[in-house]
């Protein structure tokens, strides 16, 4: 037992989540580190950067005392990983920590959206939308670009707007809809609110295809947004909790699994 404790304290468990837009890293054990960096166009280069940043912080991924689990869509690029685990399993593990137990995880990512059911500590079901960018972070990014604002500004604007309906389910068509709204001189606030509503509707639709747990948490890039969480709660008629560290859910889970999967 004592030896076990000593072991954990002397080890570093590293979780690396290479997402489509951002890469997240969490270290547990001897060190306690957390950082994000943009994935850029090459997961390979991002991986090298991560390795360097970890080394600066005193974590040598090549050392015997370090266990690395890689996840996310670029997970195979992490050639120094001891184990590769899908984002579903890692998110579920990390989400469990964030929610403090069983939960439903709604993860709105840069390229995909997933809904994961965690029951008695394990994944019992999941759904993924990774074929279509509507209902993902990508959609928001494209629309913010169209409006000439940042993502944060989009959220800020939306709060004061009166949502106008965006009926297209497809990102490309939705974009032309927005262009015509801009052309008509509609208020940006209203368009922004419409954009977010459209994503909320898509995400809610996906989530409602399965029976949710008592506790529903939001993870991914939008997880800290109270506004998004409250809109989603409204749409689903259930309380969806924002999480401060939600964007780290996958990396956090990977870091836990780095420890657990060896035993």
């Amino acid at each position, binding site marked *: 037992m004592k030896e076990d404790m000593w072991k954990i304290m002397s080890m570093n468990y590293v979780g690396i989540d290479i997402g489509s837009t951002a890469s997240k890293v969490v270290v547990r054990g001897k060190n306690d580190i957390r950082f994000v960096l943009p994935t850029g166009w090459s997961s390979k280069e991002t991986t090298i950067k991560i390795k360097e940043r970890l080394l600066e912080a005193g974590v040598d991924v090549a050392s015997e005392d370090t266990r690395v689990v890689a996840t996310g*869509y670029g997970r195979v690029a992490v050639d120094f990983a001891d184990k590769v685990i899908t984002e*579903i399993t890692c998110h579920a593990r990390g989400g469990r920590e964030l929610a403090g137990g069983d939960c439903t995880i709604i993860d709105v990512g840069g390229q995909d959206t997933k809904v994961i059911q965690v029951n008695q500590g394990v994944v019992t079901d999941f759904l993924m939308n990774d074929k279509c960018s509507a209902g993902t972070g990508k959609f928001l990014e494209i629309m913010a670009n169209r409006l000439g604002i940042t993502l944060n500004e989009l959220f800020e604007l939306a709060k004061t707007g009166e949502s106008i309906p965006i009926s297209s389910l497809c990102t490309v068509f939705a974009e032309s809809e927005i262009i015509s709204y801009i052309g008509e001189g509609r208020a940006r606030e209203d368009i922004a609110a419409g954009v977010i509503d459209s994503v909320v509707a898509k995400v809610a639709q996906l989530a409602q295809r399965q029976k949710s747990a008592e506790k529903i948490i939001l993870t991914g890039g939008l997880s800290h947004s109270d506004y998004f969480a409250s809109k989603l709660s409204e749409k689903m008629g259930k309380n969806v909790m924002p999480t401060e560290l939600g964007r780290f859910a996958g990396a956090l889970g990977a870091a836990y699994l780095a420890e657990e999967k060896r035993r």
Partner: protein
Amino acid sequence: MELIKDLPEVFEEFAEQRQNSFLNVKKLKEQGIPVVGVYCTYFPQEIAMAMGAATIGLCSTSDETIPDAEKDLPKNLCPLIKSSYGFAKTDKCPFFYFSDVVVGETTCDGKKKMYEYMAEFKPVHIMELPNSQSPEALELWKKEIIKFKEFLEEKFEVEITEEKIREAIKVNNNVRRSLKKFYKVMANDPVPMYGHNLFKVLYGSTFKFNRAAIPAEVDAVVEKIMAEYEVEKKIEKKPRILVTGCPIGGATEKVIRAIEDNGGVVVTYENCSGAKSIDQLVDEDNPDVYDALARRYLNIGCSVMTPNPNRLELLGRLIDEYKVDGVVEVVLQACHTYNVESFGIRRFVNEKKGIPYIAVETDYSQADIGQLNTRLTAFIEML
């Protein structure tokens, strides 16, 4: 019969059977043997066999001719239909080319409408398959089988006797018995072979023209597999997967690969590439051969039937017999019947059988391999 070859070689031979039959079909034609091209598991093969014809599956499995098909057919249509039509129209499929007649059934909407166009450049005989399994439906299907027999008799100027049909039934039942014995080896845990090899044999055997020779050959394979298994269990225990849904083969074998490359093993196929087309025998004691055939074929549990209780019956039985840990359903893009039925299958698998279920929608392209890998790996991780 004793097998001299090694198992991997045997499996490869089955895998290449379709290609090899391209040449064989030409030889058959030269010998004056009629060739009947077919698309569906509902096709009562014994009738064609009874007149000494070779039957050959025409369902296409590659996306090569889809752009050609899309000149006539909508984009948003099942790839099996588009690809089959494309191969037919461009004359790129030797089986189609050498078929004297093509038989289609009124199964799903897309297929039956496609046959209307196919009939413009090939003799197509359509059998009216009812969409339920009621007594009235049985009566209609029996009539359709008799009509098909008469059609062949007239077209090829032959007589198809009941005696011959009975013989064909016996031959085919023996094929089914041997294939069942073959796939049954997967009930062992750990498995004696991978699911992709199981698939090769099942798929390859449908392209063997000499049906009567199949049992001896397959029995020998079974013996060899089990003899080697007794000596050494080469594959460790892995999550056991049942594959159900739309027919697979060719391009869609990517699903099998995604399962077996990522830690699982396919222990049984419920779909048309497996148990669905093999499980039930034709009643050899029924004095009315047409009734026996009609019952056997109409009872197939495909999602084109409404309601479709036999699919659940077979699924449930396979899940138990093969100690299945998880069910993977393959839905071809735009296949409404399987897609709609997927909700009910999930409910049955989750609630009645208490195991996880996942449906993956795919087509004949290789563009979604990454997504398939992630989904199926995550599914296997949760088992």
